[in-house]
C-alpha cells in the first residue's frame, strides 16, 4: 500500500466551500495553542470574540466599519493579483491616499460637502495610484521585483505620514499627540445612522459591483486575466504588457488610496499616527480567501472585520496585544494554502504492484 496523489479533473463546489471553512476552523484550533500558552482559555477567548463581533447590533456595525476599508483594499489587490503582479504595498497606498486627502483639506478647503469630497477623493486616487504605478512601471519595464518595491514603499509611506503628523501638520492643541487638527464637517463622510458606519460603505459596494462587472463582462477584464495566466501569449495576442501593468497598478493603488481617504474622512476625522492597523496586509488574506471573486470579497471582508473586532475586545478584556489577531490570520493563510493542495489533488491508496 502506498499513498499517491491524483490530479482532480474539475473541482467540486463543496470543496470550494469546505477548504476556506476548514481552514478557518483549523486556524482557530492552532491559535488556541498560543492562548493556552498565555494562560487564557481559548473557548472563553473565542466566545468573547464571537459575542463582541456578532453578538449585537453594535458589534455587527463595528464589523461593517472594518469591512469597508478591507473590502476596498481587497478589490484593489484582486486587480493586481489577477495579473499575477504581487502588490504587497496596499498599506502604503492607503497611507498615501490618507495623506493626500488630508493635504486637500488643509490646502484647498472649500465650502460645499460634495466639492470637498470630490477634491479629497481625486487627491487620494492620484496619490495612491502613482505610488503603486511607480512599482508597476519598474516591474513591467525592467522586471524589478514588485514584492520588494511595494513593501519598501510601505515603510516610506509610513515614515512620510509620521513626518507630517509629528511635524508640520501636528495639531498644536493635541497635547503632543501625533495627529492633525480635526477635519471640518464638510470634509467628513456622513454617518448612515448605524453605529460608526459611514457613507464609505457605498463606495465599497460600488467598487465591488464595478469589479464584478469588469471581470465578468468586459474585454479589458478578460485581457487582465490572460496577462495573468500567460504574459508571453498575451504579448503575442497584441496586448500591451507594460501599459496594462502600469494601468492596473495605478487603479489598484487608486482604490487603496480611496480606502485610506475613507478611513480618515469617515472614521477618524483627522490624520493620525497608526490609523490603518495593517488593513493593507489583512486585505491580502481577504483577497486570497475570496479566490479573487468580488462578491466573495464582500462576505469575507465582513467576517475578517469580525476577527479584528474580536481581537480588539480580547485586548481590552484579556490584555492580549492587538497583534495577536495576526496569529489567527497567519494560521488561516497557512491552512488555506495547504487546503489548496486537496482541491487540486485527491489522495488515493494504491496497492503496490509486484
Amino acid at each position: 500500500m502506498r499513498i499517491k496523489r491524483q490530479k482532480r479533473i474539475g473541482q467540486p463546489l463543496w470543496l470550494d466551500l469546505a477548504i476556506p471553512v476548514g481552514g478557518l476552523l483549523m486556524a482557530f484550533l492552532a491559535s488556541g495553542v498560543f492562548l493556552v500558552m498565555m494562560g487564557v482559555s481559548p473557548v472563553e477567548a473565542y466566545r468573547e470574540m464571537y459575542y463582541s463581533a456578532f453578538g449585537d447590533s453594535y458589534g455587527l456595525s463595528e464589523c461593517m466599519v472594518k469591512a469597508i476599508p478591507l473590502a476596498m483594499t481587497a478589490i484593489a489587490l484582486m486587480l493586481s493579483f489577477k495579473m499575477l503582479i504581487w502588490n504587497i504595498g496596499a498599506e502604503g497606498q492607503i497611507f498615501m491616499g490618507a495623506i493626500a486627502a488630508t493635504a486637500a483639506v488643509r490646502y484647498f478647503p472649500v465650502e460645499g460637502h460634495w466639492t470637498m469630497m470630490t477634491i479629497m477623493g481625486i487627491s487620494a486616487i492620484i496619490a495612491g495610484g502613482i505610488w503603486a504605478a511607480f512599482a508597476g512601471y519598474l516591474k513591467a519595464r525592467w522586471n524589478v521585483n514588485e514584492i520588494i518595491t511595494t513593501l519598501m514603499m510601505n515603510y516610506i509611506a509610513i515614515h512620510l505620514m509620521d513626518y507630517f503628523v509629528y511635524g508640520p501638520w501636528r495639531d498644536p492643541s493635541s497635547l503632543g499627540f501625533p495627529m492633525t487638527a480635526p477635519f471640518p464637517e464638510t470634509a467628513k463622510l456622513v454617518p448612515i445612522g448605524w453605529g460608526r458606519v459611514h457613507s464609505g460603505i457605498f463606495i465599497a459596494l460600488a467598487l465591488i459591483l464595478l469589479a464584478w462587472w469588469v471581470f465578468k463582462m468586459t474585454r479589458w477584464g478578460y485581457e487582465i486575466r490572460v496577462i495573468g495566466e500567460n504574459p508571453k501569449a498575451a504579448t503575442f495576442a497584441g496586448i500591451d504588457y507594460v501599459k496594462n501593468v502600469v494601468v492596473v497598478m495605478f487603479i489598484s493603488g487608486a482604490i487603496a488610496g480611496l480606502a485610506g481617504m475613507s478611513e480618515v474622512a469617515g472614521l477618524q476625522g483627522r490624520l493620525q499616527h497608526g490609523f490603518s492597523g495593517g488593513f493593507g496586509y489583512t486585505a491580502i488574506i481577504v483577497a486570497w480567501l475570496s479566490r479573487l471573486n468580488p462578491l466573495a470579497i464582500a462576505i469575507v471582508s465582513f467576517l475578517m472585520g469580525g476577527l479584528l473586532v474580536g481581537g480588539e475586545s480580547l485586548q481590552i478584556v484579556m490584555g492580549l496585544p492587538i497583534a495577536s489577531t495576526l496569529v489567527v490570520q497567519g494560521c488561516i493563510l497557512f491552512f488555506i494554502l495547504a487546503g489548496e493542495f486537496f482541491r487540486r489533488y485527491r489522495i488515493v491508496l494504491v496497492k503496490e504492484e509486484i
Partner: protein
Amino acid sequence: MEIIVPILAAAVRSGTPILYATLGEIITEKGGVMNLGLEGLMLLGALSGFAVTSSTGNPWLGVAAAFGIGAFFSLFHAVVCITLGGNQVVSGLALTMLGTGITAILGIGYVGETIKGLTKTTIPFLGELPLVGPVFFDHDPLVYISYALVAFMCWFLWRTKTGLNLRAVGDNPRAADSVGLNVAAIRYAATLIGGGVVAVGGAYMSISYSHMWTEGMSAGRGWIAVALVIFAIWHPARAAFGSYLFGGVEACQLRIQAAGTNIPAPLLLMLPYILTITVLLIISVKKGKGILFGAPAALGTPFYREER
C-alpha cells in the same frame, strides 16, 4: 579617521543581523524555495534567543534556541511549499504574520528586561591592526561567526558535492531528480537550515546588539534582506558587502540624528528603504531584461516527481 572608523565599525555591527538573514535566505533560495517570512523568523529568533538567554544566563544556548525555532517555523513553510506545492509568496507572508503575532503575545513578559548577552571580545593581533582592526575585529563573537559563515558558504556552494547538489535542485530539479537526488529532502534541508540562520540574525539583535526585547524590533530588516539576496546575486561575499552598506546607512542616520540636525527623523528613517529600491532598480536595469545571472532557475516553482 577618528570619525570614519567608528562609523565603519557601527556599519558592521548594524549590518550583521541583516547579513545573517541574507545568508539564510541564500541557502533557502539556492535550493529553489523562496521564503518571504524572514521578518517573522527574525522576530521569532530575537524573542526565543532572548528568552533562553534570560532564563539560562548562557547566550550560546539562546543562539542555539533561535536556530532551532527558526528551523521549526520554516518547517511549516517547507510543508506548504514543498510537499503541498502551495504559493510561496503567500506562505512567506503567512510566516511573517505568524511570527509577528506570536512574538507580540509571548514577548509581553520580557519587555523592559535586559540581559548581559554577548559582549565585545577583541581578537588578539588582528584587532590591533590599524583601521581593519577596530572596524572588523573588535566585536562580539557572533560577528566573527558571520565572517566564518560567509567563507564557509562560498566554499560549500561552489567547492563541495553537497553544494553542487543543492544548486542543481534549485536550478533544475528535474535533472537533479533524474540523477537520483531526492529533490524534496534537499529542499527541506535548505529551507530549515536557512530559516535557522535567519533566526540567528534576529537573535543577534536581542542578544548582542540591544540586550533587550522590543515588539517588532526587526523593523523591516527581514525585507531588506530579501532585497539584498537579489543585490548579492545569490553570492555570500556580496551579501556581506550589501549588509554592511545598509548597516552603514543605519549607523549614519543615527549619527546625523544624534548630531542634532534639523532634518526630521522620519525622513532619515526612510533612507534604507529608498536605498533598497534604488539598488534593486540599478541591478535590474543593468541586467537588461532582468533575467538575473546567478538566480536559481527553478526559484519559486514546486516540483512533483510524477508530473513531467
